């Protein structure tokens, strides 16, 4: 099952490599990973998505918790949560296709952020599933480049991951 694990950790050199190294060392998968400092510059928030059965996820969480740099973490998929991913996608947009691409982008609430006479660069945000859906909806349109940010997530309601 796909899980979103959100980690609050020290914003220290080497901290990220310890997290990533743990995954390869113990034969776990990382499907996506995002990391950036929080409002408190001394802390980073890292969100990763991985796949595994309950036993594997339990081990991943325990081993992440063991890392000295990791302050707190949560498996967001255990409760109600919001997940978002950002995608920048460059597609060919000429002739009749130009209007069709714009129409599809509108349906997905995408924003055209750059244009040339022959192409659009569209920004789409949403769940990973929605971004996959957008790519599928563009079937027939030549895709030139796809850049995805990886998933960020936050728990719904009053639950907060902080020190």
């Amino acid at each position: 099952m796909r899980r979103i694990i959100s980690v609050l950790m020290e914003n220290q050199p080497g901290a990220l490599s310890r997290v990533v190294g743990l995954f390869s060392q113990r034969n776990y998968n990382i499907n996506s990973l995002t990391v950036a400092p929080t409002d408190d510059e001394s802390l980073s928030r890292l969100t990763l998505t991985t796949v595994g059965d309950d036993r594997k996820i339990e081990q991943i969480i325990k081993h992440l918790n063991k890392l000295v740099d990791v302050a707190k973490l949560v498996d967001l998929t255990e409760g109600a949560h919001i997940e978002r991913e950002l995608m920048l996608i460059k597609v060919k947009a000429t002739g009749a296709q130009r209007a069709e691409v714009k129409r599809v982008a509108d349906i997905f609430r995408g924003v055209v952020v750059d244009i040339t006479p022959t192409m659009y660069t569209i920004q789409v945000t949403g769940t990973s599933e929605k971004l996959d859906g957008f790519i599928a909806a563009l079937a027939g349109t030549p895709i030139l480049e796809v850049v995805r940010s990886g998933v960020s997530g936050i728990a719904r309601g009053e639950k907060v991951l902080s020190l």
Partner: protein
Amino acid sequence: MALLSGGDALIRALHDEGVDLIFGYPGGAALHIYDAIFNQDKVEHILVRHEQAATHAADGYARATGKPGVVLVTSGPGATNAITGIATAFMDSIPMIVISGQVARESIGLDAFQETDMIGISRPIVKHSFMVHTPEDIPSVVKQAFFIATTGRPGPVVIDIPKDVTDPSVKFEYHYPETVKIRSYSPPTKGHSGQIKKAVDILLAARRPIIYSGGGVIIGEGSELLTALARKIGCPVTNTLMGLGAFPATDKQFVGMLGMHGTYEANMTMHEADVILAVGARFDDRVTNSDVRKFCPDATILHIDIDPAAISKTVTAHVPIVGPVAPVLKEMLELVETSKVKPDKEAMQAWWERIEHWRKRQSLAVIPAENDVIKPQQAIQALYEVTKGEAYVTSDVGQHQMFAAQYYHFDKPRRWINSGGLGTMGFGLPAAMGVQLAFPDAVVACVTGEGSIQMNIQELATCKQCALPIKIVTLNNKALGMVKQWQDMQYGGRHSHSTYADSLPDFIKLVESYGHVGIRIEKLSELKAKMAEAFAIKDKLVFIDIAVDPEEHVYPMAIRGGAMNEMFLSKTERT
């Protein structure tokens, strides 16, 4: 407060941390630090002959004393040579601080002479690591490093220090912090009382209980409490290879080591148990055998460990208790003592009758060889007799290690010092150096083989320089015995690269050239007398080269993929 350079501050911080002995080897990036060592007399430095030996010596020191071992090496090859020893300490949860020199800050990343990314290379085998960026950071980094290495589940911590950070011309006001707090690191200090109560209830209701205790009991100073608890319950106790000595081996409740080369009675008792209390043990594959689905099918598993990741990693615990062994055992003992429920005497008696039946099989009985040939087991038995079971015994890895574990009966913790997790050949001699330096008057024996000893034999020079009267007990079967045993059992007797009889050195001449004493023993009839003669030499290292039966295998031996009750008991018998 004093104005100190980074190098001086480092050594001063070690002293402030209570360190009086470090092991190391100098080199370019560490020279400022070595100059700082030269200029003081608080911290003694032991010069080894290879950085791997420095880590094993510090490791042996740590295992014998419970205090962290400290290592100092230079950058590049100095750092990489230390890696095997760091991994050895990591696998067995040994507190260790490894200080490595690094090229100057401005040279990092430029492929400078003797540059290697020590933080990166050591990352999977350390508990934590620090790169020191300014001299002023040295005191706080040292404080944090010792705190991390020695608390929770202990482990090695690397401190990588660029050369210019220890520059003698750059000074700062030295102040060693009295306390340390790391917001993202807070190891447990006690177990969950509800879980402990639950475990005690199950243990007291058990009809066929066993205590399975590991290295964590020794590291966590829980031996006395464990022994007291076992006596109260009246149940059998087995120790892992790492846990030997945590419960007295000569106690009648002790059923021997369990696992791959455990006794028949220990493995049978585990397999038939209805409750297993696992304390500071991690259900590793040398205990459970390869297929955990067959592991102890009737047992309810109560598992105490300070590391939550060790619980339910391979075998699922029914009652997990995360916490340090000693306070948890203390709480359990108090509950057992005050509980109205007492262990069922009749059930326990019936249980012991079954265990005695397994014991009668005498799985460690030694069948003497013909023609005055020495069996390796007999050599360990002689060692045990001559040292009256009181020696510190270090070992290398292989058949001799298993024979020592089986036939030297450890009654006290911290006396049996071996590389259990990583299985590092070359560990024994340097580890013995660390033990002998920690306890100069103790009898320290290194049980080894002619294969393992050659992996760090250069340390004979360190032993000479430091006048260490270690007794090296070499079971010489002229082959890599354990490799050969597996080849006999699983590869049709094809001894691929496991023999070298024609190229062995004359160990007696070799050790004599270092200024040590060598004694060769070839006949069973002279074994005890010559062993006694060797141990009567109190002030010198003695290398005892014992020719043993090269055909001997270690038994019992777990059958691959089987349950705990499936063992080979000799070359011709199996369960």
